[in-house]
C-alpha cells in the first residue's frame, strides 16, 4: 500500500454525494451518472477522485471482491462525510474491518441472526407493533410516523435481541442519531463517547447480573473464553445498536411514504396481504435507504472497461445499482408485482447486512399491520414539505406527519 497515492480529480467531475429532492428517488443530477458506463468518476468533498459504480452486475462483483477493502482504520480510506474526517485509526468491528478479522467477529453473531431465529421473533415484533399503533390511534388523528412508530419498532427489537434496557431508549436513540447524523464532528464524537461509556457500564453490570440476550451470550462465552476483548465487545455492541436503529427506522418510514405515494400499489397490497414479502423486497430495491457503500482498492482491478488502481476510492451506488435497466425492467417504476429479490438494498459480499432477516420481519409486520389497522392513513403535509435526510446519511424522512 505504500506505493499507492490518492488521486485527485478534475473540477469537472460531479460532486458526490448529492441530496435527494424526492425522498424515494435518486438525486436528479445523478441522471448524468446513469449512462451506459457502469463506472464513472465523481469528486469527494476533499477533492479526491472516486469511482462511482452504478452497474448492478459490476457493483455486485466489486462488493464480493476481496481486493476491495472496508478497513476504515487505513489512513488513506476514503472520507465521504467531512465530519468523520480524522476518525481513521478507530477500527469499527464488522463494518470497518476486512477478513480474517471480520469473519472472526461475524461468526460470533451469525447464529443469533439466522432465518429461524428471526422467524421466532415475529410474535414479539407483532406485539410491539400492535401496542405502538394502539397508542398512536389513541393520541391521533395526527402523528409523526417516525417518532411514534418507525423508530420504536426497530429500537424495541434490537434492545430485546441484545438485552439492552429499552427504558434507556431516549438516551441511546439520541446519541445514535447524533453519532451518524450530527452536523459537526465534535457533536458526533461527543455522542459516540457517551454511547461508548453507557455500553461500557452496561457490560460491567451484566457481568454481575447476566440477562438473557445476545450481549449476555457474548459476555458469557466469547469474552470469558478470550475470543473477544472488552473494548471490542463494547464497540461491537455499539455497532449493532446503531445499525439496528439507523437503518430500519428509515426503511419503515420511507416504505410507508412510498406506498402512500403509489395508491394503486397500496390497493394491490390491501387486496392481497400475502404480497407483503415481495412488497418489502421491492421497497428495499426502489428506496435504497443505504444509498452507497465506500471501499478502498488494495490492488488494481479491471472492471466495466476501466482500471480501478490500488489506492483508488470506490463508491458503490446502491441507489443506482437498484435502478439499473440491465437488471430491472422499467427500473424507475415502483411495482410490488415484480421479483426484486436480487436487489442490493442489504449490500453484497461478506459485509452483506447481518440483520437483514430481522429487518425483513420488522418491515413486513410494521408496514402490513400499519395499513391494515389504519386504512385511511395519509400524509398530513404535501410531499415536498416532508423533511428528509442529507445525501450522505441513511435515506429517509426526518419526520413524517400523517393523519387518518
Amino acid at each position: 500500500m505504500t506505493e499507492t497515492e490518492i488521486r485527485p480529480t478534475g473540477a469537472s467531475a460531479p460532486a458526490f454525494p448529492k441530496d435527494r429532492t424526492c425522498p424515494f428517488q435518486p438525486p436528479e443530477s445523478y441522471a448524468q451518472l446513469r449512462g451506459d458506463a457502469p463506472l464513472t468518476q465523481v469528486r469527494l468533498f476533499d477533492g479526491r477522485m472516486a469511482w462511482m459504480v452504478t452497474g448492478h452486475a459490476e457493483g455486485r462483483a466489486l462488493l464480493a471482491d476481496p481486493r476491495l477493502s472496508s478497513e476504515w482504520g487505513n489512513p488513506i480510506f476514503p472520507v465521504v462525510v467531512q465530519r468523520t474526517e480524522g476518525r481513521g485509526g478507530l477500527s469499527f468491528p464488522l463494518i470497518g474491518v476486512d477478513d480474517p478479522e471480520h469473519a472472526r467477529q461475524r461468526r460470533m453473531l451469525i447464529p443469533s441472526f439466522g432465518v429461524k431465529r428471526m422467524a421466532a421473533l415475529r410474535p414479539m415484533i407483532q406485539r410491539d407493533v400492535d401496542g405502538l399503533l394502539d397508542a398512536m390511534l389513541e393520541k391521533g388523528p395526527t402523528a409523526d410516523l417516525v417518532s411514534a412508530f418507525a423508530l420504536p419498532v426497530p429500537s424495541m427489537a434490537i434492545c430485546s435481541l441484545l438485552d439492552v434496557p429499552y427504558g434507556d431508549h431516549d438516551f441511546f436513540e439520541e446519541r445514535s442519531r447524533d453519532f451518524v447524523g450530527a452536523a459537526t464532528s465534535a457533536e458526533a464524537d461527543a455522542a459516540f463517547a457517551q454511547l461508548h461509556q453507557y455500553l461500557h457500564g452496561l457490560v460491567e453490570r451484566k457481568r454481575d447480573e447476566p440477562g438473557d440476550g445476545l450481549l449476555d451470550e457474548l459476555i458469557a462465552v466469547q469474552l470469558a473464553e478470550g475470543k473477544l476483548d472488552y473494548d471490542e465487545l463494547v464497540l461491537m455492541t455499539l455497532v449493532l445498536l446503531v445499525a439496528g436503529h439507523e437503518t430500519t427506522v428509515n426503511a419503515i418510514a420511507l416504505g410507508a411514504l412510498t406506498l402512500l405515494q403509489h395508491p394503486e400499489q397500496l390497493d394491490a397490497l390491501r387486496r392481497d396481504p400475502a404480497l407483503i414479502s415481495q412488497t418489502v423486497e421491492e421497497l428495499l430495491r426502489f428506496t435504497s435507504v443505504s444509498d452507497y457503500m465506500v471501499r478502498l482498492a488494495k490492488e488494481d482491478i479491471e472492471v466495466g472497461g476501466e482500471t480501478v488502481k490500488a489506492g483508488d476510492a470506490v463508491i458503490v451506488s446502491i441507489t443506482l445499482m437498484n435502478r439499473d435497466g440491465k437488471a430491472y425492467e422499467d427500473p424507475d417504476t415502483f411495482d410490488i408485482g415484480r421479483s426484486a429479490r436480487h436487489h442490493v438494498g442489504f449490500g453484497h459480499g461478506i459485509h452483506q447486512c447481518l440483520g437483514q432477516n430481522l429487518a425483513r420481519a420488522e418491515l413486513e409486520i410494521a408496514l402490513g399491520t400499519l395499513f391494515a389497522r389504519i386504512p385511511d392513513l395519509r400524509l398530513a403535509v404535501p410531499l415536498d414539505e416532508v423533511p428528509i435526510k442529507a445525501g450522505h446519511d441513511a435515506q429517509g424522512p426526518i419526520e413524517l406527519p400523517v393523519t387518518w
Partner: protein
Amino acid sequence: MKITIDRDRCVGAGQCVRAADEVFDQDDLDGCVVLLVSRPSERLSAEVRDAERFCPSGAIEIHDA
C-alpha cells in the same frame, strides 16, 4: 445437478434458506449453511440457482452433470 458448499466462506446471511429451504438450512450452533440434499431433484433446480445467485459470499457451487 450436484451442489457443494464451502462453510468457511459462509457469512450466515440466510439467502440460501430463503431461496430453497428444502435444500439448505442453517446450523443452530454456528449459524452457517447446512446442505440437506446434495443432488436435488429437477423440481428444485430454479430455487437452487437462486440460492447460488443470491449467496453474498460465494459459498454455494452448482456442478451440472
